[in-house]
């Protein structure tokens, strides 16, 4: 179908206008992709709370007062008062690609889609691009033109150097106090425990954390016909490996790493989504959003 064709990452990678891509991706999805624990004005009644001096009297339920002579405030689910913070990994390893779409490109599409989705829902969206340091930062905002600046930032995020999660999370904690959704888009080539250690303070802060683990199919299941000399894109180290190892023990290690990451994420009540860059982004994102929707 045309929508699925447009959503094919290989095709989208040829489009230079990411905003369009993001909008295209978002169309057809349900809104309400997150729940904010912050109560605010909305159409959906949530609960009653006794009135205390200082509360806004506009929310007093007078019907309940007439019946009970007691003053109670109506509380509604705040679906529009949250924000999205994207942490996008732009280290050198994100530049890897075994087919037409690199992980970095995939991360851009994902980040753009999530940003668009958030801002369209009048939620603030922010962006931190990092590698071994914070390279770029946009605090969450709903102002007009903010999406464009986010997309611009994403478009110019090129993979370089190594990876360090501590710095962007520290930065995020320093500049963001509101609770919201934190989406970390990375290939996570680091120890899962150290990842969670860096993220845990945010979880304690009440942030809703999602790990988007972006991997190339060749990274999950490398298949070489002969011995090959591999060069680490971040460290420059070289190593000759055998096809047997690539087909055997490496895949086991990768699977173990993914499972470990998933487990650690569950331990801090963060979501973990494994994304294969060979799969269409809309399908992967749709799958996740439906899962969140069913879970609320």
């Amino acid at each position, binding site marked *: 179908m045309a929508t699925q064709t447009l959503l094919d990452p290989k095709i989208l990678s040829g489009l230079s206008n990411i905003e369009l891509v993001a909008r295209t991706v978002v169309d057809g999805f349900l809104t309400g992709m997150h729940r904010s624990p912050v109560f605010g004005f909305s159409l959906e009644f949530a609960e009653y709370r006794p009135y205390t001096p200082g509360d806004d009297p506009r929310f007093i339920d007078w019907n309940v007062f007439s019946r009970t002579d007691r003053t109670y405030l109506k509380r509604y689910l705040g679906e529009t008062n949250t924000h999205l913070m994207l942490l996008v990994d732009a280290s050198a*390893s*994100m*530049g*890897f690609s075994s087919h037409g779409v690199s*992980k970095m490109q995939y991360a851009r599409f994902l980040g753009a889609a999530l940003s668009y989705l958030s801002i369209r829902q009048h939620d603030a969206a922010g962006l931190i691009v990092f590698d071994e340091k914070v390279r770029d930062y946009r605090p969450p905002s709903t102002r007009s033109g903010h999406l464009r600046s986010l997309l611009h930032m994403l478009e110019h995020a090129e993979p370089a150097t190594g990876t360090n999660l501590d710095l962007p999370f520290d930065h995020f904690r320093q500049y963001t106090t509101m609770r919201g959704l934190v989406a970390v888009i990375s*290939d996570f*080539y*680091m120890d899962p425990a150290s990842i969670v250690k860096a993220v845990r303070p945010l979880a304690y802060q009440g942030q809703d954390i999602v790990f988007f683990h972006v991997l*190339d199919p060749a*990274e999950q299941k490398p298949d070489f016909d*002969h*011995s*090959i*000399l*591999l*060069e*680490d*894109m*971040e*460290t420059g*180290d*070289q*190593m*000759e*490996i*055998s096809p047997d*190892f690539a087909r055997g*023990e*490496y895949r086991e*290690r*990768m699977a173990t*790493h993914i499972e470990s990451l998933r487990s650690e994420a569950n331990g801090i009540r963060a979501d973990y989504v494994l994304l294969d860059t060979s799969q269409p982004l809309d399908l992967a994102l749709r799958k996740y959003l439906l899962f969140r929707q069913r879970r609320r």
Partner: protein
Amino acid sequence: MALLAPWFLLGGLAVGLPLWLHLLDRENPIRLRFSSLMFFEKRRQSSMKERRFRYRMLMALRIALYALLALAFAKPVWKLAAGAGAGDAPGLHIIALDTSLSMNYSDRWDRAVAGAGAVIDDLEPADKAQILAIGPGVRVATQAIGDQTELRAALRSLRPTPSRNSYGDLAEAVRTLAPDADVPVTVHLFSDFQSSAMPGRFSDVALPTMATLEVHNLAEAESPNWTIESVKGTTRVFGGRGARIEATVAGFGAPETKKTVTLLLNGAEVARRSADVPASGRASVVFEDFEPPAGNNRAELVLEPADELPLDDKRLVAIRNAEPSTILFVHSDARRRDLTFFGSALDASAQAMFRVEGASVTQAEQSRLEAYSLLILSDIPQLSQEASARFETYVKAGGSVLVVVGPKATLAGKAALVPEGLEEFNYTARDGQRFQFAGSVDESHPVLGQVKRFQGVKFYRYAKLPLGPEDDVPARLSDGSPLLIERPMGAGRVLILASSLDNIWNDLPVHPVFVPFVLETARYLSGQDQSLRQLSIDSILELSKGRGSGVQVFDPQGERALSLADSATGEDLRLTELGFYELRRSGATELAAVNPDPRESNLRPMEADLVSMWEATGRNDAGEPVEGEESLLAPPPLKLWKLFLVLLVVMTLVESVIGNYHLKIQREV
């Protein structure tokens, strides 16, 4: 450094192969940039620098391998310089003394001994010396020793001999001794450098490069010498006939002079003759019409006055005065043509000491065979059984029989003493120009030496003689058929002639060669060896060819020259003493006169240039020893190629280890 096979260095071009392969591989590695090696290693990663180092080391090893291989095949050697004082290095001094007859001349031998003694005196403490005596052959008087007392004792024990010498024998001995010495060798040759001692080829006297020749020439400026060079004449007489001897006197390097030749017979003077010998010329004297006593006589011809070399002033001759030997000629021809021809041939030779007695078969069967020196069966098909047995006994006891095959024998298909019978015979018409000539003739056979290969003799008819396992065929016809067969039978022999002696089956009797054929056949079969009359010293007395075995030989001192065992087997004997040897066999005694080799009497020395050339072998133009690969004046060259081969093996092992390590897949276990 020198290269013995420099062309093999071209193989060094093969170093380009590993160079090219390594560079090729370096330019085109299969590489892939990967997002992370995090899951590919848990230990230390091999750095690019380490890998590159290993790669280059492997390339260098392989290049060195090919280079070493080429170099090893080129066979490099390192010539080590002679150390200081190489001239003072211990050496081996071979003191060779000429002990030939010519060294008896004047005081040559005394001077030789004195000179050799001086060499011994000059030996360094580390030197060794070895004494050789040249003539006859080379006799080793001592091994290489440093004990001067022992050397002098060996020197004193030597004496000049009446024999000849050959410098070729000396060179051969030095070539054998010198390579084992491992030190410089100096050959001190004390000799008169007689030209007759020089072999025909100069290369026969060349010494090995590690040996130098020092010449001690003992020849005088002038050395005149006279000798009785040869004696010929009648040495076997019988029936009152007088003997005749002609002696030739020769002068070598001598002025014209008058000499007297005295004939002694059994020690008693018989006659004297004078000879005017021209300068360096020859003169003959004749002794005739003297009757030697019956039996063996020892004749001596003595030249007077004696000269500086008295050993060659005497010539010995054995003269025998005996009744002629009787030959029993058994014939079947009523006209006795074969007997006539045979007897006439013997009578024609003045040297023949035979009397032929003809007999029929019947007469022969009744004769006492032992009285005859030779039996001839001419065209006899068979004998009676008893007679045949007696004939065989005669032969087996050392006698000899000549069997002549003729028409009667071929008609009967058999001949006496030829048990195999006659297979067939060839018949050709006399006028049909179809005949056989003599094909192969062994002229070394005593019977055939004078027959000139039966040239011109036509054989019209002949029998195909059966051959036994031990038969010898000294003569064949042109179609390959045996003409003459010699068959040993016990201690004796049978000679079988395939064609008759009656001038019918062939025309041999009318050819001049018939006489020497008959004479030599008679002499050979009867054991009358004329060569025993005069022999040269060191010649070989071939007793095995004599008439049967069991010969006893006594030397001029009357001592047995052969052991009893050797006497029984008929071993050959080298005649090493001058004088008369006595040979006793089958009841008969013969004398063999042994004289000096006449070549020793010519004292003419070698040309000075030739001596210089000989001395210069092994030296360069400066007179210094030639440096050669085997020169012992310098240490032997170090054979570097052996070292390279060892290195090659080691490097091959190292390359295998490093290559295996380099190519090993880095596995994470």
